[in-house]
């Protein structure tokens, strides 16, 4: 599908443009139409299940936001605000679902971003699951000897039992990682990239169309 084959930078610009449009739209149907379009895309790229799982995280947040706006303003504003938040987060869901951080990072490197920056971004994302796994191991180990680290107020009093081992292990991991990177030539001058990121004709076409739509919507704001 075209969405997959577009350059990561094109996808980034499209995402940012859509986000800007959603934020600027003042009527509820603006966000509703966007959500409908995103729904079609999500069905098309078969990301339904992931989207469902992710909605479970976002919906409570949306509900809270909706209630807050309803309380401070009125019902229609609340609906618009809720839909807007949902549409905004969904745009980013589609972006991250179709683009890996490495692809984005490497593409940006070819546009001039220093490679170390791009690496730090993608490595940081890789490390998140490792840390959540480590934290779980630590919680299990401490609970096994009676230190109550299950979610709750008691855990607050015992937080050093979780944070100290986690911190020390993260230093260790950072050390090991730095050494492993060094041993694989990280930071050597003259790096090449196994994949080429080039803005092709269709990237320019998509970008031009998207800009036209944006300008149109700003100049003729019926929506």
């Amino acid at each position, binding site marked *: 599908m075209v969405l997959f084959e577009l350059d990561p930078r094109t996808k980034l610009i499209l995402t940012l443009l859509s986000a800007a449009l959603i934020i600027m739209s003042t009527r509820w149907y603006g966000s509703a139409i966007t959500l409908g379009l995103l729904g079609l895309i999500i069905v098309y790229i078969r990301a339904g299940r992931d989207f469902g799982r992710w909605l479970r995280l976002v919906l409570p947040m949306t509900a809270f936001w909706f209630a807050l706006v309803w309380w401070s303003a009125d019902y229609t504003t609340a609906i618009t605000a809720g839909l807007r938040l949902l549409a905004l987060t969904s745009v980013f869901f589609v972006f991250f679902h179709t683009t890996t951080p*490495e692809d984005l990072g490497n593409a940006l490197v070819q546009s001039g971003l220093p490679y170390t920056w791009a690496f730090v971004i*993608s490595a940081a994302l890789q490390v998140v699951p490792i840390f959540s796994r480590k934290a779980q191991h630590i919680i299990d180990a401490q609970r096994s000897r*009676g230190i109550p680290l299950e979610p709750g107020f008691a855990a607050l009093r015992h937080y050093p039992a979780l944070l100290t081992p986690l911190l020390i292990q993260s230093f260790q991991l950072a050390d090991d990682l730095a050494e492993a990177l060094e041993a694989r030539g990280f930071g050597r001058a003259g*790096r090449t990239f196994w994949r*080429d990121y080039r803005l092709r004709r269709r990237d320019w076409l998509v970008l031009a169309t998207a800009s036209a739509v944006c300008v149109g919507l700003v100049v003729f704001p019926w929506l």
Partner: protein
Amino acid sequence: MIELHHVHYRYTQTGGWILSDINLEIHPGEYVLLCGASGSGKSTLCRTFNGLIPHFHGGVLEGHVLVAGRDTRTLAVNDLFAQVGMVFQNPEAQLFQRTVERELAFGLENLGLPRASIHARIAASAATVGITDLLPRSPQQLSGGERQLVAIASILALQPQVLVLDEPFAHLDAPNVRRVQAALRTIHRQGMAIILTEHRLQHALPDADRLVVMQQGRIVLDGRPRAVLQADPRRFGMHIPPVVQVAHTLALPEMPLTVEELLGMVDSEESSRQKAAVDVVSGGLGRTIGGLQKIEPMRWTQPGHLHHPPTTTAPPTVLTLEKVSFLRDRLAILRNVSLEVHAGECLAIVGANGAGKTTLIKHLNGLYRPTQGRVWTMGQATHRARVSDLARQVGLAFQNANDQFFTFQVWDEIAVGAHALRCYDEAWLQHLIALLHLEPLCQRSPYRLSEGEKKRVAVASALASRPTILVLDEPTAGQDWNARQALGDLLHSLRSQGQTIILVTHDLDFAEAHAQRWVVLAAGEIVTTGTPWEVMANARVMCQAGLEPTQLFQIHSAMSRGQMVQAEREE
């Protein structure tokens, strides 16, 4: 290829030398097995080969390290990494890309290769190691063995002249050990030199063509494996595989490296020697190999009758699992597991990585609740009890002791659990500390201990609440021979005091020496239980569970299968 002349090294300006007066020459195409106890300096030595020492670690380096004739001092790691490739011990910290394919590409990109040759090298390296089907997967989702292979492939792609591996078998089970062995054999055949560190010899010994033994920063033995084994490296604190121990006891003229070789040598001798060999295996060696000096050799044939002479009343049941199933993300991790554990027994739950062993023991103190079925710990149903209540009955020590240390003194670390459980008993802790020989460590920081000492502190903290059941998860992982012996002695004294112990391990040598009963777990199911030798005699089940019989058992069963059957029965 690599030459070291009078190399001394220390990490700080003032500390003691970690390496002293190392002279070593590695030739192209050699397969060198570098061994020694923890702290003997073998990992440090490896880091001098590719310039990580001194360029990355700093410290004081004296003498000369030459790679392809050039002093590493004058080169950067960036110049050396493609000549001397290094695979580290911790796979987690080596794999940092989203896919295996990118992982393999990473070093090649740094090398500045053109795109076409990057692709060609990824394909070739993946094929050699046998991971072509893993290329699109994420390293995070792979098993430990697969990650080790990916780490090897990512270095192999650089086409170094020397491949250095730091304890590649440390955390692998039998099927994965075989995969890594096979990959290394292929790489070696292609002409690459291999340097591999290990503190257990038996995995790499058959393939290596040179054995180097280190002790306290010095090279103490160096030569052909058979010659070095003949010189008996036991005096340098090294463990030698059971086959070699048998050969030493028999004073065989040549040292065997595998069970098959040993059997071949013994077969050609006269029959009295064979009988002697069987005696050695079933008698004397049985007592010394596992560190269980005080236990009678007869325990192999009649385990369970050692500390509990046959009585009419069976010991009480302390733990019952009743048709336990456990699902995670709709995946069955445990299926229909039923098990009873009796007071005073030492039970081993054995199985390959990922068989569900750790998941199973997390049910014993309520960390996990069964999706179906029931767990009863000392008559208490775990699905209704709190973890902190169950923790007083079940002392659990997990594999990685660093997961629990957060105080600054060993004493506090041991006492903190007892305080939290409100069962602090100073006299008991003093007794425990004496039992585990921790007196000299009490005031030290737990983070500054050796791996073996850390493990003993973790066991002490699991015992602090005087639990009825002690559960040890992979107690021997990352432990060298001396630490294993100490752990074995500890288990022995705990058992003689009637402590119920559950070992969880894929280390069958250890489980054979210390457990009376094995429960074999494969893909979340109990496939068999029995005495160690009953289980190992069942070749079909062993294969299904991804386990390999111990050398001791292989020797014993091969010999008794022959003309020794009769003699064995008389015994």
